[in-house]
């Protein structure tokens, strides 16, 4: 069993910039100790609501980019979609505000030893952690094709620098307001075949991950996914964030996606809804 990310620290950060891009907020945070240990796929946990908050739990955000030695010091960047109360609070915080953060947390995307052809597939803000990954892969000599989809153009996260790191980028929107009209899965199979993709990295809503996985499985392409489960702690102490995962011993266990994930081998995840019957310790 993998234990908590050994590089995690708890620290106080300061917002350097909070800008709206499309439907999202791009927040740059100056904070010591997190970028230093961060790898693509890791996430951070942020306290929300201030000193007299009625929200006791931290909120989880994938690291979009991080840099230990930028000209502003050690920085971490995130892409925030306003969803409920906590993310709404976050998007309202102005430059100079203090944030309490724990990170980097969770597993990171495994990097292939050899320069192979990979695809990064991002749904909505799920694209955020993939461009840093793309850069690492590029430096390894991989060919990287990107496929980014969302409901509408405002929800496509594909920053200019990101676009430069990849060999190609395909965009789909359900309403046709940007790129091809339709879903990621409408164009995925062609893209995988054309570019002879050997490994897929995907991040987005569970429905999308599942649809991608069906195609990956059919084409026998390895698939690393980053999942998004409700997390109360993010550090492995509460057991809320579990998913059924088959171990190397063949046994299915409910593993914590905050420490055994969020990056998981798509083949090991049991994709059915609920707790699968063969899970260790399943009751009744």
């Amino acid at each position: 069993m993998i234990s908590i990310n050994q590089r995690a620290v708890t620290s106080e950060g300061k917002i350097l910039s909070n800008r709206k891009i499309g439907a999202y907020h791009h927040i740059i945070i100056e904070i010591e100790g997190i970028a230093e240990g961060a790898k693509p796929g890791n996430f951070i946990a942020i306290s929300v609501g201030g000193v007299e908050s009625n929200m006791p739990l931290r909120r989880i955000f994938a690291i979009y980019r991080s840099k230990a030695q930028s000209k502003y010091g050690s920085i971490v960047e995130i892409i925030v979609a306003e969803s409920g109360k906590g993310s709404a609070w976050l998007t309202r915080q102005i430059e100079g505000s203090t944030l309490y953060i724990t990170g980097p947390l969770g597993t990171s995307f495994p990097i292939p030893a050899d320069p192979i052809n990979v695809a990064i597939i991002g749904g909505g803000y799920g694209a955020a952690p993939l461009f840093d990954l793309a850069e690492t892969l590029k430096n390894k000599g991989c060919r990287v094709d990107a496929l980014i989809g969302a409901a509408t153009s405002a929800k496509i996260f594909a920053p200019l620098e990101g676009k430069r790191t990849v060999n190609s980028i395909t965009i789909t929107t359900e309403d046709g307001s940007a790129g091809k009209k339709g879903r990621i899965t409408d164009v995925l199979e062609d893209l995988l075949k054309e570019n002879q993709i050997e490994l897929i990295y995907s991040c987005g809503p569970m429905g999308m991950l599942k649809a991608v996985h069906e195609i990956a499985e059919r084409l026998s392409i390895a698939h690393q996914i980053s999942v998004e489960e409700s997390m109360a702690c993010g550090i492995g102490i509460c057991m809320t964030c579990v998913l059924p995962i088959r171990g190397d011993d063949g046994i299915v266990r409910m593993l914590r996606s905050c420490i055994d994930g969020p990056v998981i081998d798509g083949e090991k995840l049991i994709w059915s809804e609920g707790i699968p019957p063969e899970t260790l310790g399943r009751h009744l």
Partner: protein
Amino acid sequence: MSFDYSTSIAGSVFSNPIFTASGCAASGRELAQFFSLKELGAIVTKSIMLKARSGRDTPRMAETPSGMLNSIGLQGPGIDKFIEEDLSWLISSGAKVVVSIAGESVDEYGALARRLRGIKGISAIEVNISCPNVENRGQVFACHPASARAVIESVRINLGGEYPIIAKLSPDVTDITLIAEEVINAGADGLALINTLLGMVINPKTLKPHLGGKTGGLSGPAIRPVAVRTIFQVHAKFPKIPILGMGGVSSGSDALELIAAGASAVSIGTASFGDPYATIKIGKELQELLISHNFPSLADAVGIAHDR
């Protein structure tokens, strides 16, 4: 004059009164990278059952105003694997350990107690008879005097007096002092107060119960007034029985409330989710407060609200 921060529960001595809460520190290892577990009064492990258990369906949590619901359903590896992997690691780390157990039947509690005999390094057994996250809430032994009593008797007999027994009770009862009385008579050396309150959140979008298990246990600052009241009531009736207090503590001042009500030690649960260092921070704050109130020792503050 030096301040004495230690506490004792039925003969077991702890360097300070701040413990983790069962189910809110897994088996301790996860927190160990943030601080040394020896800094805590004790680690209380996640309630362990006889066999491996996968727990309830997800989602397993919902945030509520100043609180949260959880419906973990006692997921765990089972007692054997727990002893082999988690407990042995914990003990070797030098941490003080309170092992929490949960069974589906009176016999299962007894079997768990037997399995734990003879393990060096356990400071106490917390008997969780109050977990609301079970399929059949009739299984909440702490809801009925007779079943509460039967479980504690079974644990006592099977444990052979090796470690103090702390019975963990539910606040979801008409009169908690009656349940306390039964478990004390059955041989509990201390009480853990309180487990979570049974609650539910309905998702405003789907209009269905949000949790996979429908109901869940309410914890966090929201429930602190219920914890203080319960501890106060039980300490008033049984002033000699040590209480491990818990429920919504997230600052030294909160912990002091529970201690003044009658707790000899305080477990920190939900607060650790919001801050991995919560236990350490609370421990420091509490010590400073006790000193500023001119208490020569923690023990002098226990139950002080009853005398003033």
